[in-house]
């Protein structure tokens, strides 16, 4: 819990930040740089691709709506070319529409644009450590998709077939506002393993086939954003 002491490790973490709104970009850059990350910023999809071409970042932070394209494409490309890169989507509201869409193409976390600087740094640090963040509303959305409703609730399509009952239990706990410690206590897990489960859940929700109909639907869903 004292990450600032691990200076050399943090120095090695490179972040590619893709955000077209300049003030937001500055704010995030400030927060990350102050925490010791090595940040490269891009304002467009083209710039981001150029940045990727130079060197693979450890972390990719990207907005979805970009002036010359969509963040989803960038996430998918990064995921395919650099499997070790942790990908986070920057969202204004942290709503399921943007977060779930990003997760299905390979993102494993999300960041709220108005988060406090310390929270921004902490979220990125946790992600690198293998701990994916999740909100109650995202957990709720995923859990609801695991229930066999004849009429699926609106929102991006999601294939939850790979989730285990334990993972669904964890999601339920998060949706109801229980802390990781409480969930771990209820389910007989170690508190440390819960965030890892979240990342595993995200990985299972990822759609791997490019031509899959689900993917098309994701894109259509995103156009409405």
């Amino acid at each position, binding site marked *: 819990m004292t990450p600032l002491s691990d200076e050399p490790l943090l120095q090695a973490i490179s972040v590619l930040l893709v955000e077209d709104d300049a003030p937001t970009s500055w704010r995030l850059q400030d927060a990350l740089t102050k925490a010791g990350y090595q940040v490269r910023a891009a304002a467009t999809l083209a710039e981001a691709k150029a940045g990727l071409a130079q060197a693979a970042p450890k972390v990719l932070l990207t907005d979805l709506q970009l002036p010359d394209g969509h963040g989803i494409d960038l996430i998918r490309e990064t995921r395919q070319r650099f499997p070790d890169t942790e990908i986070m989507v920057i969202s*204004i*509201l*942290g*709503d399921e529409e943007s977060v779930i869409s990003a997760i299905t193409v390979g993102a494993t976390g999300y960041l709220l644009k*108005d*988060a*406090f600087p*310390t*929270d921004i740094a902490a979220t990125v640090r946790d992600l690198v450590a293998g701990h994916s963040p999740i*909100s*109650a*509303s995202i*957990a*709720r959305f995923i859990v609801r998709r695991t229930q066999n409703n004849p009429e699926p*609730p609106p929102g991006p399509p999601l294939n939850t077939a790979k989730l285990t009952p334990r993972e669904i239990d964890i999601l339920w706990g*998060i*949706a*109801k*506002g*229980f*802390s990781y410690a409480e969930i771990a206590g209820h389910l007989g897990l170690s508190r440390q393993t819960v965030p890892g489960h979240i990342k595993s859940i995200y990985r299972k929700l990822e759609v791997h086939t490019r031509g899959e109909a689900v993917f098309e639907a994701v894109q259509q869903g995103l156009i409405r954003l």
Partner: protein
Amino acid sequence: MSEDAAIEAPPGEVRRRLQGSRLLQYVLLQLLIAIACGFILRQPLPAPPENYAVTEFRLRQGDTERSVTLPHFASARSPADDQPTYTGRFTFPAEQPPRAWSIYLPRFTNAAEVAVNGVVVLDTRRDPVANRPDRSTPQIAVIPSALLHGGSNELTIRVLVWGPISAFLDTPYVGPDNVVRPYYDRRALLFVTLPIVFSAWQAILAVILTIMWVMRRHEPAYGMLAAAMAVGVLQAFLSTPLDESRYATLNSIAIASAPLESGLVLAFGILFFGRKWPRWGLIIFAPSVTLAVAGLVGGQASVRSLYLFIGTPTVGLCLVMMALISGNAVLRRQDAASILLGCAVTIVLTSWIHDMLSVLQIVPDRRIFFSRLSYSAMLVAIGAALTWRFARALNQVDSFAGRLVTQVREAEDKLKASFAREEERARAAALARERTRLMRDLHDGLGGQLVSIVALSERGNDASAGIGDAARAALKDLRLVIDSMDDIGGDLMLALGSWRERAMAQLRPHDIELDWQITPPGLPVHPELRPWHVIQIMRLLDEALTNAVKHARARRITVSIETRRDAPDLDQGCITIADDGKGFALAADGAAPAEGAKAGRGLRNMRSRAARCGAGLDLISGAGGTRVRLTLPHRFPDSDANG
């Protein structure tokens, strides 16, 4: 003039006049029918050429012997009387090649034994059909050629009588078989085959009418007619017994069932024309019962003698009654059924009168009885008409059902259309309501915060911290509004999960600890929970939290969630927010706190929000901190009381 008079005349008189004219018309029609019937009945039936007729006979009866000309009525009426024997001669031409000759008896009662040259060639008693005196059965027999010799041959006919009518012998014909037989066949068709056909028909109708009556017990008319037909069929297939056994007695009683049959037909008429069953109704069946009793006590002979004095008049009486009833029905109802039935009764009545005149030998005749034939024909006509009426009623039911199906389908379509319209309207209304709510929620939160941001930004640099707070609050509120619109299936715990995240994000910079305590099973599920309830509760909790952060300077905030059960089946969720801040003093009215106008407004808002959701709000504040307890209603209200 006459028209004027008709109009001015009182309605009763007009009706009487109308009835009178109707009655006259009907009676004239029946008279016409009767005359036509009489005329037809008087028509002689076709007979073989006269040269084959044998008319001159010597009648020997007992000790007396005299010459007679056939047809002849003899006085013998019962087996006790002397049976008449007729002896005559006919000429047989010895022609080449020889043709078969036959003796043809067109009509005789009750039986005849024919001998040619002293050898019996025909005994009608052997043919059961021929033994029924009420049927005009003809007989024919081929004379063995060995018996015949050229020139004059002797023909002896012994007539046998067993009542109830007297002996009769019509002119016999002796001639070539191919000449005589067609006349026999024609008569047999009319008086033997046709009655059998009618009887078979009657049997079928009896079954059909019985089924109709069984299925429609409230229409006993069908039952009566079915019984009449059944009795008719039964007696038609019985033959006259010629011996004296128990069975023979019953048989003769059954044959003498015509009064019963006519009684049943009369009962049918009474019921069919919608008359109330009269109190004397059972008298109709008295003659038939009398006959049966007489038969059981006195045997065949008494049945036969009584039949003539009781049976036949009863039949006639019933027919007259039927004629009156149907005539009355014609006057009252003026429908085809009653007119048809009336005409049929007239025909049968005319036949009956004809037969009576014949039996009583008032009118010279060859004693051919038509009553039975015409009666059977009438029954068949009635039965067929009823069946036709029944089929028509079925058709009407069918078409009615068809119409009903069409109408139901049309109504269904209309209903569907109107339902779709209604659904569309409801959806539009729901959308409009949702928009109004969203607008109000955004106005309450986001709008105010954005205005606050504008105001702060105009003040210059020193307000930048305030701008940040306001903008962050606006985003938080936006998330709240979006979150509250999600379908949480009435589980407030899911909304509280999101709220906890937001609360922790809010408290983190202030370094305030959030202690989250859930007493299983948390809060009860409220299926009636609507987004606007959720938003009110979340805002209420937000305000309690803000008060704790901004005014109470608390270090630790505890949120406890539990379900209280004060009464059985009355679970109430309870959310408590307690802080360890400095608290504040409430004014005496409990509404406004003594210090801090802003906090006061916050409290008022909280009370108002709790009231709108039907929830209870308890607030305790003191030196040890403040505790806000929100008690959720057992059932959330449907509509927003405060608009």
